[in-house]
């Protein structure tokens, strides 16, 4: 659409700007401020320059949780994106069943995150939860509270349960937007199911998949509440992801300076990786 130049449009954007600025810029400035000072109490603080940044960038505890975080987000994307596409392809296309499956699939998205944690905390326990009980009865020695591997996989399974629906609903709406004529032409051209998926459906899912990948990356990278409720980050540090490390630092140990410095590094990582995803996916297709 060709837009007209009109600086008065700022008036329409102003409320958004003020509102978001209030909640974003002031706290961000506070964080920047903390990150370059050593704070003992409310009245005494010393300027320390890049000291905290040096410290957090060398902190092995943070390296570990950053690695865990990338491992987790990677696993989340590798499972949820293909599974979400698959679920969308299997969903009924019209009628009551379409509405019904849509509503049922959306349920996990609308459950408060700590309740998601609670549901899986209960569900996975061997004594009172169906999942833990079933696994143990099948002879699998499963205990997410004691075994780090079990805990990690439980958090992953919980995330798949929680968020695959988002990818599925995005893809479902993308699929519905493909005109029937394309399927007809493909049948005339004797395309196999796979060819239809590869050459007609997938290319047309591109824009919703970009949104899906970005949202899933950002949110899985910032995950906090669900594992906190489920495992409290344990056993050991096996499910302590970045957000939790950060809150422990800031609130638990009151290491405000390093926590702030680390917060900014964290924010930059999310920004950078999101930008990388976005540019690679959009450019991948326009290369030819």
């Amino acid at each position: 659409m060709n837009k007209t130049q009109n600086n008065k449009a700022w008036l329409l954007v102003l409320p958004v700007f003020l509102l978001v600025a209030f909640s974003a810029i002031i706290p961000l400035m506070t964080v920047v401020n903390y990150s370059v000072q050593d704070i003992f109490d409310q009245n005494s603080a010393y300027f320390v320059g890049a000291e905290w940044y040096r410290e957090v960038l060398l902190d092995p505890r943070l390296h570990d949780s950053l690695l865990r975080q990338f491992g987790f987000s990677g696993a989340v994307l590798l499972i949820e994106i293909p599974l979400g596409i698959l679920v969308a392809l299997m969903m009924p296309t019209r009628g009551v069943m379409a509405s019904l499956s849509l509503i049922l699939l959306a349920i996990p998205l609308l459950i408060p995150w700590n309740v998601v944690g609670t549901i899986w905390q209960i569900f996975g326990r061997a004594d009172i939860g169906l999942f833990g009980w079933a696994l143990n009865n099948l002879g699998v020695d499963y205990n997410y509270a004691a075994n780090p591997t079990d805990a990690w996989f439980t958090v992953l399974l919980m995330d798949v349960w929680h968020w695959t629906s988002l990818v599925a609903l995005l893809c479902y709406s993308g699929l519905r937007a493909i005109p029937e004529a394309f399927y007809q032409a493909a049948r005339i051209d004797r395309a196999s199911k796979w060819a239809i998926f590869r050459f007609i459906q997938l290319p047309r899912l591109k824009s919703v998949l970009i949104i899906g990948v970005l949202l899933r990356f950002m949110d899985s990278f910032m995950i906090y509440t669900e594992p906190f409720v489920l495992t409290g980050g344990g056993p050991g540090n096996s499910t302590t992801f970045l957000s939790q490390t950060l809150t422990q630092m800031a609130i638990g140990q009151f290491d405000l300076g390093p926590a702030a410095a680390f917060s900014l590094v964290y924010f930059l990582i999310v920004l950078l990786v999101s930008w990388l995803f976005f540019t690679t996916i959009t450019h991948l297709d326009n290369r030819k």
Partner: protein
Amino acid sequence: MAEIQLRSLAHSYSKEPKGREDYAIRRMNHIWEQGGAYALLGPSGCGKSTLLNIISGLLSPSEGEVLFDGVKVNDIDTRDRNIAQVFQFPVVYDSMSVFDNLAFPLRNQNVSEIKVRKKVNEVAEILELEDLLKRKARNLTADEKQKVSMGRGLVRDDVSAILFDEPLTVIDPHLKWKLRRKLKQIHEQFNITMVYVTHDQLEASTFADKIAVMYEGQVVQFGTPRELFEKPAHTFVGYFIGSPGMNLIDVQRSERGVCFDGFELPLNEDLAKQLSSLESDNIKVGIRPEFICMQEQPVEGALPCDINHIEDLGTHKVLTLQLGNQVLKAIVGEDYEPDGLPLYACFPEQWLKLYVDEYLVEVQGSEQ
């Protein structure tokens, strides 16, 4: 390649059709012979596209059978009917290049890449797409896209038939003519059955050897362009073919034939006999404007009339005649000049057609 036969075919889009008007296709039989170039002509909404989609299997008919070379294909999926179809609005796979688009139907059948390249280049040359082969299909103009769509139909030379659903709607007029010639050439070269849907009689008659005229869900006449013109089997064909269409006059039975507004048109004995055996009162006579001859003398059988209006079209003139309460059109030569004297219109017997319940009444066994 195949002969396509439709046997007591009917289709309704509603699940429980109540009356005639719920049917998009009304019970009909039809045969497209192998290797013919056919046009399916009719106004929009008459069921042309529905019929094509039933042949290709995109729709399954509510009643009746579709046979390819005598084999029933109702339950065979579109994919396996091996039919090519070009739609009215271009469908291109926009993430692929033009080359990949054209190669798609071949690659789906695992044709070797060497042959794919050969066929694609061949078709690209026919459709003048050579320079665009490397371009992304999404960046093409509407008529380029339609050429790609058509190309996908033409790359497969083993198809049972190619169906065209008003393929030239979005194409430039000068290119239209060229593409129609191309299609005709391809038809002659490969001897593939082609069915071409259109609402344009000119397009139909330049492309096809035989035209099926469709009206309200049925093929009302199937014949050469000349047959459609000279002997319309249905009042709709008379009205739809020709410009202006056939003059149709509501008439009543009379002693010697039929009459209207106090004029009597005598019928020959055979036709009168034929008419008397039918009960309906829905009787019409039709005559093409081209066949009305104007007389200045009250000769035998000529009816007195006035000229309301003259349109000079350059190659001929169209007269609007007032004959009693009827308004008729007549076509006369460019040099015709009425001189204000009383005029008489004459309906030559061999061109005067009799329709009962909209269908032509013919003398059985007679050849015209």
